[in-house]
Each structure stands twice: as structure tokens, then as C-alpha cells.
């Protein structure tokens, strides 16, 4: 797939080093499952991790560590089926869905099956519960053609991954598979372009707070 909007290389480095919270890692995973350019970058960053492992001075292991390991592998039946069959599943599902496989376990494998909730005219949303995440949020948005995502603020970073349709903001046009990786400072109000609605998944640090009165009204009922 030819993609035009990629994550910041700094975000890819943090992804590789394990320094992103789960919602952001999920979006990066979804993008690199479709993007050669970025998966090559992540490969390069993973090599840094490999170098650091090799350069690390050894720590002492507990006395029975090796025995424990040898016991575990000797008693472990040489059964590789579970991982293999899982991969086949993923591949098969991948062939008949528009949702990239790293998103399946969070949002399911079909846009049609998503149970949307009304946010504002032409805009629906679903919040995805992130267990164990203190301050990172994941939301799915379904925005009608020509609609603007209501103006909103949040305390930190934001990333948006396009599942279907297209949107545009002052940083450019975003199509399926593209990822918008915006700095805190960037004020933006994306508009859905084209004939179809745009389904996107947004990771934010801190909950999204909508600015307009109308959206605020709903904000009090549904936290997005």
C-alpha cells in the first residue's frame, strides 16, 4: 500500500524502545502492518535494542536459573501449533476485512459490527477501554462526509489512524492507512473529504475535551 502520511521517526523510536503507552503503540502497529517505509525504520531501531543487549555487562543469575530453564524446555512438549494456527487465522481474517490485524483484538474485524454511539450530528464515536492505562485513551470516530471533527483539546500528544475514508487538515490529506502524528502545539480541525464517511481511531494523552457547546453537552454524558 502506498501511504503518504507517516508517524514521526521519533515516535517510531519510542515504539521500538517500549516508551509508548498502549493506545499509541496499537496505532503505530496498525500503520506499520501496512507501511514498508515505517516497518523498515522500526527494524533499524530494533537493531539498536539488539546492540544494547549485546553490549550489556552480564547480571548474575540465581543459582538454579539454568536448571529451571532446562526443566521447563524438556517438559515442554515441542508443540508449535498454537502460534502457527493463530497466524493462519490472522492471515485469513486479514483477507476479508478492512481493519488491519493489529486492531482486531481491540475493535473487532469489521466496521459494520461496531456499536456506535451518537456524539453530534453526523458524528458517532466509541471509546475503547484501555485496562491498566492511567492517562492514555483510544476512541473510534465515525464522521460523515464534509463534517468537521469538533474542535477539541487534550493535555498531550494525539495520533489518528485512518481505517476508511479520508480527512484533511492544515497538515495535509489523510487516506486509509495514514497516520497523523501531531505535536501538542498543533491546533487542528480535520474535515472529512470525499463522498464517504471517515472512520478513524484516535489515541490521546488525556481524554479529548470538545470545545463547542453542543459537543460539550454530550461530553457530560459520554466521555470520549
Amino acid at each position, binding site marked *: *500500500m*502506498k501511504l503518504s502520511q507517516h508517524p*514521526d*521517526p*521519533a515516535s517510531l*523510536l*519510542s515504539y521500538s*524502545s*517500549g*516508551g*509508548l503507552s*498502549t493506545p499509541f*503503540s*496499537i496505532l503505530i*502497529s496498525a500503520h*506499520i*502492518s*501496512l*507501511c*514498508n*517505509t515505517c*516497518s*523498515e525504520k522500526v*527494524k*533499524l*531501531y*530494533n*537493531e*539498536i*535494542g*539488539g*546492540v*544494547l*543487549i*549485546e*553490549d*550489556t555487562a*552480564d*547480571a548474575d*543469575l*540465581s543459582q538454579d*536459573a*539454568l536448571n529451571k*530453564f*532446562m526443566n521447563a*524446555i*524438556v517438559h*515442554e512438549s*515441542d508443540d*508449535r501449533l498454537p*502460534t502457527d494456527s493463530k*497466524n493462519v487465522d490472522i492471515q485469513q481474517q486479514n483477507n476479508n476485512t478492512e481493519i488491519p490485524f*493489529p486492531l482486531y*483484538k481491540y475493535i473487532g474485524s469489521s466496521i459494520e459490527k461496531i456499536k456506535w454511539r451518537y456524539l453530534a450530528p453526523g458524528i458517532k464515536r466509541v471509546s475503547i477501554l484501555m*485496562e*491498566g*492505562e492511567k492517562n492514555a485513551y483510544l476512541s473510534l470516530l465515525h464522521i460523515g462526509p464534509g463534517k468537521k471533527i469538533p474542535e477539541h483539546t487534550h493535555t*498531550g500528544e494525539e495520533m489518528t489512524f485512518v481505517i476508511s475514508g479520508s480527512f484533511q487538515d492544515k497538515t495535509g490529506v489523510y487516506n486509509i492507512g495514514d497516520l497523523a502524528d501531531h*505535536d*501538542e502545539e498543533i491546533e487542528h480541525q480535520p474535515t472529512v473529504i470525499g463522498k464517504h464517511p471517515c472512520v478513524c481511531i484516535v489515541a490521546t494523552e488525556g481524554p479529548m475535551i470538545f470545545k463547542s457547546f453542543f459537543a460539550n453537552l454530550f461530553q457530560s454524558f459520554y466521555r470520549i
Partner: protein
Amino acid sequence: MIQIDITFVKKLQIKKNPKDFSMLFQFYGPKIKALMIRSGSDYAFAEDIMHDTMLTVWKKIDLYNSSKGSFSSWIYTIARNNRIDILRKKSSQPYVDINEVEMMSNDPDSEKIILDSQTAANIKKMVRQLPQKQKIIIEMAFNEDLTQKEIAEKLEIPIGTVKSRMRLAYIKLKEGFKEYQ
């Protein structure tokens, strides 16, 4: 010290001989544990992650693909994923396995990075040669497991500076990479 090279790894993939795995364990086990301690885990927890990581290596050895990265970087990603799994108590960690991602892409612009043992050695050299300002940030990210925000706070610099140094480090690594190809 034994030499863990691609010949050794291929041998493991053909036959999962416990004796060979005990050598692998003795080489990587203490390093994984050390890395985990440096990133803030206590000794017992670090050893648990190390143990889980080596078991995953045993189970998944045939999924390792040398054209997608060095063996050590593969081990690194398994250790990282295990740590995240346990810390966040997730049944499934949020990472896509680079080794398992097969691109459907025919994107002519994407630059394929072919990794072999020679390039892995070159990357090692390049990481060591990074300008100090970039190197510190990379080491804090990978060794100490810090987020961009935490690095910014620790070094008392804006987060934008952390990001731009990370980007610069990438450009440097990439340049060095091209030189060696």
C-alpha cells in the same frame, strides 16, 4: 564465551537441541536480566522476564528470520514485549511482530534494509559513534525504558528537543547504513 552466529542459530532452528539452548541461555540470560534491572525492574522480576523471554525463544525459534534483523534484535523485541505484557497485565501486548508482518506493498519508494551479520556489526559501530547528545537520549529510551516526556524531564529540555534529537539519530544511522551497503 561461545559465538552466537547465524550458523549456530540455523542449527537451533533445524534441531531444537536442549544442550544448544542451554548455551544460548547462558549467553543471553545474564544480559537480558541486566537490561531489565537497568530499566528499573528488581532482581526477581528481571529474572522472571528473562526466564519468560528465553522460553519464548525456545518456543518460537523457527519464526526467527535472519533477513529481517539480527538475532539479538529479535531477542530484544521478545524481552521488551514480555516486560510490557507483565507490567501492563495484558494478555496480548500491543506490538505487531516485525518478523511476521508480510507486506502486501509494491511501494517503489520504500527502501528495503537488508540486515545481515555485517550490517548488524556496522549498526553497532554507528550507535557507538552517534553524537553524545543523541546517544544519551537513545540510551535513556532503550536502556532505562523512559518515555519522551520522562527523558525531557530528566534532562530538563523541551520534549520537542528530545524528538528532534531522536530524528537526527535516525538520519545519522540511516546515512551510516547506506555507506556500508
